[in-house]
C-alpha cells in the first residue's frame, strides 16, 4: 500500500467519511418537496389518453350510439364483453344492443374495443375507483355503462380525441350510417345532408 493511499484512508477514518457519504441521500431529501400526495384527499391529474373504466355514450339528441354490432366483443382479447343485439321495438329495422355487459374484473384495459367501435359508442374514462365489497357489481351492465358514460362524458370525449378516433362533428355526421326505412312504415326522416 502506497503512502498516499494510506494517508487517504486515515483521513477518511478520522473524518467519518463513510457515514457522511451514506447520509448524503437523507440530507438531500431534507431539502426536497415530498412526492407522496394525500390520496384520497388529493387527486392526481390524469392524462387524456388514460385507459380507465369503460362507458357507453349517446348522441347529443339522447339516442344510444351503440348499434349492437358486436365488434367490441370480437376484438376483446380477454373476452370480457358480451353484447346481445335486437331490433329496436320502437324503431323497426334499427339494430341496437338489448343487453351489454363488461366484466371489468377480466378487462385488461387494452382499449381494443374502443378502437373497434365503428360508431364511437364506447370510450374509456378517467374513472378508476370502483372498489366494492360485492364482486358481482363489477359485471357492468348496460345501465351502469351508460351512467359511467354520462358522468364522465367530457373525459370520454377527450379520450377519443387523444386516440385520434373522433373527428370533428360535421365530418363525422357525414360518415354516420343511416338505417334504411321500411316499405311499410317510414320510421325516420331523410338525412339532412342528402335532402
Amino acid at each position: 500500500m502506497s503512502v498516499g493511499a494510506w494517508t487517504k484512508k486515515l483521513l477518511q477514518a478520522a473524518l467519518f467519511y463513510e457515514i457522511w457519504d451514506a447520509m448524503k441521500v437523507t440530507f438531500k431529501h431534507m431539502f426536497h418537496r415530498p412526492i407522496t400526495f394525500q390520496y384520497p384527499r388529493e387527486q392526481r391529474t390524469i392524462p387524456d389518453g388514460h385507459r380507465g373504466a369503460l362507458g357507453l355514450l349517446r348522441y347529443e339528441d339522447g339516442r344510444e350510439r351503440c348499434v349492437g354490432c358486436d365488434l367490441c366483443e370480437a376484438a376483446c382479447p380477454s373476452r370480457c364483453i358480451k353484447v346481445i343485439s335486437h331490433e329496436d321495438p320502437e324503431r323497426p329495422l334499427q339494430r341496437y344492443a338489448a343487453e351489454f355487459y363488461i366484466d371489468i374484473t377480466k378487462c385488461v384495459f387494452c382499449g381494443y374495443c374502443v378502437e373497434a367501435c365503428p360508431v364511437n359508442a364506447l370510450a374509456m374514462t378517467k374513472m378508476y375507483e370502483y372498489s366494492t365489497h360485492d364482486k358481482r357489481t363489477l359485471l357492468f351492465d348496460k345501465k351502469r355503462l351508460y351512467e359511467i358514460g354520462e358522468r364522465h362524458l367530457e373525459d370520454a370525449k377527450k379520450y377519443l380525441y387523444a386516440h385520434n378516433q373522433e373527428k370533428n362533428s360535421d365530418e363525422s355526421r357525414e360518415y354516420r350510417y343511416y338505417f334504411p326505412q321500411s316499405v311499410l312504415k317510414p320510421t325516420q326522416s331523410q338525412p339532412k345532408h342528402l335532402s
Partner: protein
Amino acid sequence: MGLKPATNPDVEAATIELSIDGRTVAAKDGVSLYDVIASTGKIIPAMCYHYTFDPFGSCGMCLVMQEGKKAPVRSCTAKAASGMVVRTEGDDLFAARKKAVEKHLSVHPLDCPVCDADGHCELQDMAFQHGVTNLANAKQKFIPEDTRSLVLDFNMNRCIACAECINVCKDVLMIDALQFMKKGGFNQVVPKGDQPLACEFCGDCLAVCPVGAITNKYSKYLYKPWQMKKTTTTCNYCGDGCQMYLETKDTEVVRVTSPLSWKNKWGDRAETSKGHGGICVRGRFGFQYIDSEQRLRQPLVRQNDSLTETPWLDTMQTVIDRLSDIHRKHGPESIAGLITARCTNEELYLFQKLMRAGFRTNQLDSSARYGHLNYVHAVRHAVGIGRPLNDWEDLTKAKAVLVIGSNITETNPLTSVRIKEAIRVYKAQVIVVDSANTNIAQLASHPLLVKPGTEGLLIDGLVKSVIEQDLIDEPSTGRHPQAFAALKQALDQVSLEQVSARTGIAVEQIREAAAIFAEAPRAIALCAEGIVRRPNGYHNVLKLIDLAWITGKLGQPGCGVTTVTEEINEQGAVDMGVAPEFLPGQARFDDPIARERFGKAWDVTLPAIGSGANLLEILARIRSGQIKALYVIGENPVATLPASLEAKGTLEKLQLLIVQDPFLTETAEMAHIVLPAATYAEKDGTFTNLEGKVLRVRQALDQVGESLPDWHIMTALANGLGYEWHYESAQDVQDEIMKLLPGYYNLGQPRRITPSADAYLSNGYTTEVATRYRIQPTESSSEAARPFTLVTGQLLYHSGKLSTRASGLINIEPNSARLRMNPADLQRLGLNEQTTIRMTSPHGSVQLGVRIDPDVLPGCCFYPEHFNEPPVKDLMTVEVDSVTGVPYFKSTGVKIEKVGG
C-alpha cells in the same frame, strides 16, 4: 340450357385440352372455363357464380387473360375450347379485379356493423383481399327495405345484383319467385310482380346471397356469425334427412343454415344429383319449438286429477313401482308401448329391447305403421329388401318417373328437387298420378289428374296397357312364364275403358303413360301417401312391382319402385324392429334363427310367436282389458286417430299411461305420468332417411330444463326395473347395434343390393295375383249422398303435429280452419270465402270456413292433417289393411252444405 353440365348418363362429352398458367389441362367439351380452372384447384374470385346453376356473369371478378384477346375475359361465361391458352394470375388481373370490387362497393352502404352478413360476406372478403381502402365517388342508394314478406327482408341497398338468388330459385328449385326490376334508378331484386313474397319459402336465396341483401326475419339482428356455435346435424321433419347447421347462442337456437351457401360455390354439377345442399322451409324456419316456452321442463305425475311437477327421482320411483306392480300381477301381456319415428335409431332399438327383453312383451309399434310399413311389407315380400329401392341419384338421372299418389313438393321438398332436376337437366319425362293438381303435376310432362281414390286403379290400367301394347320386357317375363300367364289371366278382368271411366283419364293417356314408363331405359315408380295411406295400399305397391317387373325395371340399375316417408326415421323404426312382426334388421319375429340370435344377445327368451300386437291390436287389447299399462314415447294417438277408433276412451281404461314427450300433447294431458324428453337438437344419435342412409344427429344444446334424452330415460327405467343396462351414451347403444346388425351403419351409405323377385315370382305368385286385379264395384248410393271426397294430408309448411309448435311455421301457415275447395265447386254451391259450411260424414259433422284453392280438383276438398281445430279427422272412416294392419283414415266421402244465409 347453357354451359353445364357436360355429361349425363347417356351422353359422354368429348375431352379437350387447354393450357392454364402454362399447364396443360384436360376438360370436357362444353363446360365453362371457370369450372375447368376451378377443377385444377385454382380459386379465382367470383361473386355471382355458383355451380348449381348456369353462369350469369355479372360481378366481373372471374377475369382471366386469354391469349389473342386484348382485354381480360370473364371466365365463367366463356366456354372452354380446345387449344385455349389462359393466364389466371398477374398484376394486371389483380388491378382489374380490384376495380370490379370498387365498382360494387361504390354503391354499397358501408353498414357492415349492423349487417347480418358481417363476417360472412363475400364483398367484405373481396374488399379485404384486394386492399380496397379508399373510394372516390361513393354514393348510397337509400332504397327502403322491403319487409312485406313473411320470412325474408330485402335490403336492396346492399344488393350487388349478382342474381344468385334469382338463378337458384329459377334454375335449381324451379319456383321462380324472384325477378329483377328497375326501381328508383337501380336494378333491384323483388318478389315476382313486386308483391309480398309468396313462394315455398325454402330460403335458398338467403343461403346463396353473398352479401346481406336478403335477411332472415326470424333471426335478424340477433347475432353475428362469430358468436354462434355451429352444429352439423340432420333435420328431423321429413324422411329426406337433409344435413343442416343448427346455429346456437348459449341456450337458444338462432338460425338454421344449409350446406348450400355462397361459401361452397365450387363443385361439379353432376354432384347435385346427390342433393344440392339446400333445405326447405321447415328445416330453415321451423326451429323455434326446440327452445320453446311450451317445452316440458319437469316430470309430471297425476295427483288428484291434475298433473303436478315432481322431481325426477320421485317420478322414476313411481313409474318403476307401478310398472313392476302391473307386471307382477298381470304378466308381461299387460304392458304395451308406442314410439314415434322421430326418435333416433338408438332410441328405437332400446325401446324394442326394453319391451321385448325387459317386459317380455311383443306389443309395440311405431308411427311407421301409418303407411310406410305397407311399402316395406310389399317390397320385402316381392324382392326381399325392406327399404326404398332407389336413392336420390337414381331419381335425378331417371329417364321416366312415375309419381303416383304423392304431393312430393309438399311432403318431401328436397326429394322433389331431385325430380325437378331430372326434368330440367336430364330431360326426364314425369308422369304424375294424383287427385290434386300438385306442384309436381304442374311441372310434369304428363300430369294425370285422377278421380280421388282411384290412384290404385290407374296402376291396373297401366299394367293392362303394357300388356296390350306389347311393351313387355321379354327377358324378365320369359324367366317366369307361369307367373306371367297368371298375371295375364288376372288382368282379363280389367278393361282399359272401365279404368278410364272410373279414373277419368282417357284410354289414350293411360297408353301413353304406360309406353313412356316401359320404354325409358331408367324408369322409377314413386308412390307415397296416396298409395300407402289409402285402402289397398299393400296391394297397390305390389301392383307397381308387377308393372316394374313386366317392363324389366326390377333389378336394373337406376330403376325400381320407391317411396318417400313422412317422418324422418320411419325407415329406422322398421330397421330397428319396432313392429311386432320384425326383430332388428328386419328379421321376421317368427324366424327361429333370428330369435335365437337376439335371445342369446339379450340373454332372454323372447316373447312367444303370435303374442304380438300392432297399433290397432294394442288399442283393442286395452279395450278388452288385457293391456293395463301403456308406454308412449312421442306418439299422440288421441290427436292422430279419428274419433271412431275411440283412442281417448280407450286410453282412459288404462291403469297406467306413461307419456314421454317434449310437449304436453293431448295424449300427455290424459297420462298418469309425463316424462320430459329432449328434442333431436339436444341429443346424439342417428336417423335413417328414405334412401337408407344413416345420418348423424349431434347435440347442439344442453337439454332444456330437466328434460332428458329418450335413451337416457329408458336406460334409467330399465335399471330401476332391474334389467342392468350399462349404456352411458348413445354411442354405447350404437356399439351394440353394430355388433348385432353388422354393416348397418356402413359409414352412412346403404349397401347396394340388386333387387330380385325370382323367389317371389316362382313361389305362390300365381295364386296371389289371381285376386289382385279385382275391380271393386262402386258404391253409387253413398256417392250420391256424399258427393265430395275429403282428403287430409300434409302441407309444405308443416310436418306432423310437431311443426305446429314452431312459431316460425305457424306464422307462415296458421290454422285457418278453412276447407280448401275448387272455385267451381264453391260457385256451384253458392259459397264464398266468408261463408261457413257444415261437412257431414257418417261419423258426424263439423262446421268450418272455406278457402279457394284451384289446385284441388272439383269434387274434392282438402284439409291439412296438422290441425285438429275443428276436428276434421273425426269424420274419417277407418279401414284396416288385412295384411299389414295399417289403418287408413286419410280420405272419406262427405256432404257439404251451407250454414245459415
